[in-house]
């Protein structure tokens, strides 16, 4: 319809101009006006309208300007030639113009598509999840084609993951394209009569999913564009998959490494006490009758001590593994006074001289904590202090600002400068003149502190010895007491 109006307008304009100039210009000049109109029409409208314009131009020239005027009769032979020449020129121009217009349109479309592919590639480069890639693929297909368009990921079992309301025909078509690894449907070699393209999201034979475009345009160029979009998405999916396997492989190798370190440390830490137990027990078994009573008691005490050590070591090992794997711990309102009290009642059994002196002020705020873990932390610190020092040990608790601080101070040999961080690492022992190291104790302490959002560090004391400081965050809002 638009074409018809354009043709009418052009011809009317040419006729009007011709009528105005008729008195001053020759017939050839007026014919040129019509040629101009036909040339413009050939570029602006489709071929049939353009041909109609050419015929109209000839008819109008004949009617208005070739004598006798206002009839379709042609008297002079010369004017017949003019009319035929105009007709030929007009038809040729229309065809040339239309072809040019098509080429220009195709060039514009190609440019637009190249731009789209470039944009898609850029956006895919920053995508990290398959779902993200799928969404981009679907969005770009919908932008390029009227659609509707749909895309789905390939699951491990070889089936496509599609929305539940996907029609069975679409589902089957997509699955077939993915299984075949090539495009199916409209205009392709397989099922060319369908009104849908089924395209695999593939890159070098690795298929990550499939996409379809319903009611697609008929030309090959459009399908190639859709295939290019799908290929980019397929490439991105493959890249993400590769990255995932690389990370998994790295993780596994790290895990194996950690496992080896762990096993080496465990076998070392466990063998020493086991050797002592076997020695003492076998001595009691075979030489029991010949040993003096005090010696028998000494060997028995050794067995009990070593077993105690093994049991602590086992507990710490398991706790560390649990803390590393469990992630979050369950926190509830706890009173630090209670935790200190229960730990002291246990540790006192190993502190007959009552070397530990505690200072716990009343009215401390409650903290969010796992009491069993905190008790274990404190018990480890106190046991270490008992083991590595001979003098008084201070346990000082205090609250300041938003922090609760627990400090265990000893007068032992202290930590060698530069070792302040290393002592908290698992599987590393600071060997103190023949005494057995804390093994995993401090690593467990640090893991527990971290799980509570706290901070555990060691500081040297002015007159010798170490001070282990645990800082725990205190919630600004304390729980309300009982309703009145």
């Amino acid at each position: 319809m638009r074409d018809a109006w354009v043709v009418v307008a052009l011809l009317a304009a040419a006729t009007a101009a011709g009528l105005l100039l008729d008195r001053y210009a020759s017939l050839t000049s007026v014919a040129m006006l019509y040629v101009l109109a036909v040339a413009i029409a050939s570029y602006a409208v489709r071929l049939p309208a353009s041909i109609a314009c050419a015929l109209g131009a000839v008819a109008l020239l004949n009617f208005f300007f070739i004598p006798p005027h206002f009839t379709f009769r042609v008297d002079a032979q010369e004017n017949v030639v003019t009319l035929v020449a105009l007709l030929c020129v007009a038809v040729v121009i229309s065809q040339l113009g239309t072809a040019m217009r098509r080429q220009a349109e195709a060039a514009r479309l190609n440019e637009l598509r190249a731009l789209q592919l470039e944009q898609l590639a850029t956006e895919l480069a920053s995508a990290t999840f398959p779902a993200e890639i799928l969404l981009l693929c679907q969005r770009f297909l919908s932008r390029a084609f009227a659609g509707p368009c749909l895309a789905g990921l390939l699951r491990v079992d070889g089936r496509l993951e599609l929305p539940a309301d996907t029609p069975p025909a679409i589902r089957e078509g997509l699955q077939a394209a993915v299984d075949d690894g090539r495009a199916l449907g409209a205009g392709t070699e397989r099922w060319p009569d369908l009104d849908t393209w089924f395209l695999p999201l593939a890159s070098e034979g690795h298929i990550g999913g499939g996409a379809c475009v319903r009611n697609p345009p008929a030309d090959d160029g459009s399908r190639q564009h859709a295939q290019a979009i799908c290929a980019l998405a397929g490439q991105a999916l493959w890249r993400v998959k590769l990255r995932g396997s690389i990370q998994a492989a790295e993780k596994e190798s790290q895990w194996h490494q950690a496992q080896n370190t762990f096993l080496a440390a465990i076998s070392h830490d466990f063998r020493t006490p086991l050797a002592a137990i076997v020695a003492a027990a076998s001595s009691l078994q075979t030489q029991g009758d010949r040993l003096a009573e005090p010696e028998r008691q000494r060997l028995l005490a050794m067995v009990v001590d070593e077993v105690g050590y093994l049991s602590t070591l086992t507990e710490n090992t398991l706790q560390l593994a649990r803390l590393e794997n469990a992630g979050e711990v369950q926190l509830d309102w706890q009173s630090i006074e209670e935790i200190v009290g229960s730990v002291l009642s246990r540790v006192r059994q190993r502190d007959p001289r009552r070397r530990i002196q505690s200072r716990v002020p009343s009215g401390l705020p409650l903290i969010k904590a796992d009491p069993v873990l905190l008790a274990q932390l404190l018990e480890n610190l106190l046991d270490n202090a008992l083991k590595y020092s001979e003098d008084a040990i201070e346990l000082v608790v205090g609250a300041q600002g938003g922090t609760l601080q627990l400090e265990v101070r000893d007068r032992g040999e202290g930590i060698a400068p530069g070792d302040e961080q290393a002592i908290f690492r698992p599987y590393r022992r600071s060997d103190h003149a023949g005494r057995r190291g804390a093994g995993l104790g401090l690593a467990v302490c640090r893991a527990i502190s971290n799980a509570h959002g706290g901070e555990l560090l060691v500081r040297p004391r002015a007159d010798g010895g170490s001070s282990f400081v645990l800082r725990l965050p205190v919630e600004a809002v304390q729980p309300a007491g009982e309703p009145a």
Partner: protein
Amino acid sequence: MSLRILIVEDDREIRSLLQSSLALEGFEVQTAVSVSEARALLDHAAPDALLLDLGLPDGDGMDLVREIRTRKAMPILVVSARHQEKEKVRLLDSGADDYLTKPFGVPELLARLRVAMRHRGTALASARLVHDREDLHVDLEARQVTVDSRPVHLTPTEFKLLARLVRSAGKVVTHRQLLAEVWGPEYTDHTHYLRLYMAQLRAKIERDPAEPRHLLTETGVGYRLAAD
């Protein structure tokens, strides 16, 4: 007549060790390796106390504890490893009397057993009304609490809390049990009530609240009023 104890433990070594240690102390010991065997023995042998290990091969000790509690008042001691903390508390809540954490020594086992057996006679009879230990004296009927013969004034909630512990003196009472019985069943999640009120009680009763001698904390489980 000696007391009969049923040990339910699936590890052979530990079972035989417990058996010989307890036999040496004059107990008559029976053993079971599974929940089903324990059930059979409970019906036929009528033991006086039960030592129940967690993590048995054929099912949940919890059902067993519930079953026993519907019929018998015998003491039940739960034996657990540290990582079975939650299950242990569940069993205590459903009626077990006390627990031991592995590894434990024989003296500790005997001490716990003695406390549990002492309660055996009183569990069904009228509740304990008087608690006397070292400097602490509690008379529930007269609602009197004295430390070193000096009267201590307690608020009604503090008194209710202390009274509940006195009735189970020597035994662990779980957080859940205390909250349900002192504040009401809908308060079993309000553990901070316990933290606040126990702190007040310790401040009034203990000489050094940070190292209590009477109101003992069983970390992650509950509280225990120390008994001789």
